[in-house]
């Protein structure tokens, strides 16, 4: 230790009683009644021996386990939860869309427009369908799309952290 180490400052003088008092209260010679007085046995060898020799060493006493319990869920688990949430949100979005726009009618319209054969017909059909949508329908579709995109972006960013 060097000269800047307070506990090892001048060892004599009129204020020595005070230095001794502080050492007694805080230093290694003290056995505090509030702290463990018996030498603990390290369960896993995790704690340096010098620390265990310290008379004011506090036994773990479940403290570490308590801290670990409060940690956020593991990253893999968080990712799984997010994927499930995204899948559920997608299914919910599709269910809402199906309720608003009956799928049977949509499928029949797609067949009539030869939707599966001709790309130009697809676009024309889409334009036609969109034009027929009510303002409320467009708003709902845009809302669902925006919400899905927002959630997907949020989860993607969170998963990267």
């Amino acid at each position, binding site marked *: *230790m*060097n000269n*800047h*180490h*307070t*506990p090892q400052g001048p060892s004599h003088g009129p*204020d020595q*009683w*005070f230095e001794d*008092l*502080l*050492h*007694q*209260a*805080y*230093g290694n010679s*003290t*056995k*505090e*009644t*509030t*702290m463990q007085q018996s030498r603990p046995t390290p369960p*896993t*060898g*995790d*704690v*340096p021996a010098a*620390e265990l020799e*310290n008379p*004011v*060493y*506090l*036994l*773990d006493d479940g*403290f*570490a*386990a*308590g*801290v*670990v319990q*409060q*940690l956020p869920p*593991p*990253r*893999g688990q968080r990712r799984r939860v997010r994927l499930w949430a995204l899948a559920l949100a997608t299914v919910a979005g599709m269910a809402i869309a199906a309720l608003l726009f009956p799928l049977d009618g949509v499928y029949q319209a797609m067949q009539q427009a030869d939707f599966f054969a001709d790309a130009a017909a697809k676009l024309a059909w889409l334009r036609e369908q969109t034009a027929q949508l009510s303002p409320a329908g467009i708003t709902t579709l845009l809302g669902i799309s925006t919400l899905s995109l927002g959630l997907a972006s949020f989860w993607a960013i969170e998963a990267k952290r």
Partner: protein
Amino acid sequence: MISDIDLITRVLARDDRHAFATLVRRYQSQVRTLLRRLCAGDKALADDLAQEVFLRAYRGLAGYRGGAKFSAWIYRIAYHAFLNDKRRQRHREQPMGEATHTATTAEAAMVCDTSVAPGGLRRDIDQAMTYLSEHERAVMALAYGMEATHEDIAGILEFPLGTVKTHISRAKDKLRRRLHAWRPA
């Protein structure tokens, strides 16, 4: 024994909970002891804050730079957790904030029953510590409780070295006055 750096690497690379638990077991005693001293012996509050400290350490582990000792890094977190708690307390008890510093002579009277020493001394020191500012309490707890050098303390608390010395000097003056009853006849 696995080094701190290896444990930290495992936590960061694989989110290894066991490695983090090992770090907590390794430093829990020092952190709880430091906080008990900062909280003037309030063990329940100190242990609550210690839990918060390790949770913050877990979240901020990526920000730990291997250059400094892990103990210094976690003491710094503990000190800031203590300061935040004091701020919250002050916010809650606005008009009573100065109560501890205007204690009456009777309240300030030290228990000097040597038959219960060092427990009595411990209590008196804890009580005397309440008369110190947060900074003074922190430098004393680190200097005498954690055996930290002035340079270590300056690094932990992010104070200039001269400020650390000033705080220690002032704290000792205050404590010397408060603990005068313990002076041998």
